[in-house]
């Protein structure tokens, strides 16, 4: 499994032809306490860079973009029950959705962990 990051603070863990997407620890820290997450329904076609989910704190709402093109296979319903998971386990239990990869070549150009850390340090 390999993990990539976007400049918009999404992470994507890829295993074979499928991938899991969430938001990074940096993003959850910027947002503060998460109160609501709106997830894409299974079966929805997402495009790279397009709106995929919404995450809300008390004072901010952000769109989460899909890092790649693909079809949603599963959304993490645990987040709808308990959005605070995004604060406590953003890069683990609080994954947002899983999808099938339409074009693995889209992963090129995303950052790896070290590059993303350097990117955040520069913000």
């Amino acid at each position, binding site marked *: 499994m390999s993990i990539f990051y976007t400049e918009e603070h999404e992470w994507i863990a890829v295993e074979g032809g499928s991938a899991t997407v969430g938001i990074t620890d940096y993003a959850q820290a910027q947002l503060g306490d998460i109160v609501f997450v709106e997830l894409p329904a299974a079966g929805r076609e997402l495009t790279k860079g397009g709106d995929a989910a919404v995450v809300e704190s*008390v*004072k*901010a709402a952000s769109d989460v973009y899909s890092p790649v093109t693909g079809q949603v296979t599963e959304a993490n319903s645990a987040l709808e029950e308990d959005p605070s998971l995004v604060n406590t386990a953003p890069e683990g239990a609080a994954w947002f959705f899983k999808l099938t990869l339409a074009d693995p070549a889209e992963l090129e150009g995303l950052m790896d962990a070290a590059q993303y850390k350097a990117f955040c340090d520069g913000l």
Partner: protein
Amino acid sequence: MRYLPLTEADRSAMLGVIGAKSIDDLFVDVPAEARLSGPIAGLPLHASELAVERHMTRLAAKNLSAGAAPFFLGCGAYRHHVPASVDHIIQRGEFLTSYTPYQPEIAQGTLQVMFEFQSQIARLLGCDVANASMYDGSTACWEAITMARRVTKRAKAILSGGLHPHYVSVANTMAKYTGDQLVTSLPTLSPTPDTDDLIAQIDDDTSCVVVQYPDILGRIADLSKLAEAAHAKKALLIAVVTEPVALGAIKSPGEMGADIVVGEGQSLGVGLQFGGPYVGLFACSEKLVRQMPGRLCGQTVDAEGKRGFVLTLSTREQHIRREKATSNICTSSVLCALAMSVHMTLLGEKGLRDLAAINHAGASAAADRLAQVKGVDLITPTFFNEFTVKLSKEARPIVRALADKGILAGVSLGRLYPGIADLENGLVVAVTETTTQEDVETLASALEEALA
């Protein structure tokens, strides 16, 4: 000028602190050609309180106020007696001169009022939740239509012919720009509302059916079948209530299956005021709450664990979502909501039911009396406090002629539906607890004379 506390000495001292020679130095960023050198010519200068009061009182005296005449107007605005303590409470400076409660620690008064109001409205309309109010009934109605579009992801709304024509007009205006498709029709002078026609029109593209209850002619009909038909096609039923006092006597739209109930709250506590400010009501089922427009107050606790209230779910709103907000609305009508809430608290359930019973009985007796007048036919067999009669002549000139005699006879359908021949003899008559038997007699005699 009595409202400006700075003295000339203050002004020069403050300019000194700022480091400006004159007030003009503070307006340097205004291009020279746009600066006005003195008071705008042709406008009066400041005036004493006495002089202003004299001017305004003269204007007010040119109007025939409802309390000074036998009065029978309704159609979306109703005259009820408002207890004196309602106005006393809304004039308390802490309510009147406060702002939207963005700092909840010093706005618990307004916030608790909002929470109580939401709770009262949800119960009155028969829904799970209500918001803290909208501008008025007509804009709340349009917001409900757009909310149904967001929920169902469909854009065709079917509007009943019994919906207030101004509300239809507002929706038509907005729909021109949003791409919503509205199916509208005119009312007919028939004894029953258009429920069956509406049911027949619902299809797989329908986002919602919008029906007024009681409708523009005062008619009431069970909404259950309409709700079932809408739900069978996964469409929403939106009910519009312009006379909330009715819900002290008749079933609420929520209990008959309406998904969204909106309304005009003016008739409880607010007064006629020539059309505004009024208070829009908005209630819906719990599962739709994130798609609801307008302010919401929620219960929480403070750092010491004490119960308190805050504005909540505000990520739906424009100040955070900007172009993705559920609505562009920024203000609600909190002071009018307070007036309505106080009036409801004074009434309580018992008082509201008594008030509704008096309204209905008075209207029913008035309908019987007017139906005895030659040339007057009662069109609406079921109603709450407002009914429609068909006159043997065009109603509009008769309403005007009666107004000249100091009688405010009701709303002619010709005023609301200009140029529709089938409706021009219709007159909508509202009767509330403020209407006396003598008023009804006066109207009956005047109509007798006018129709002879």
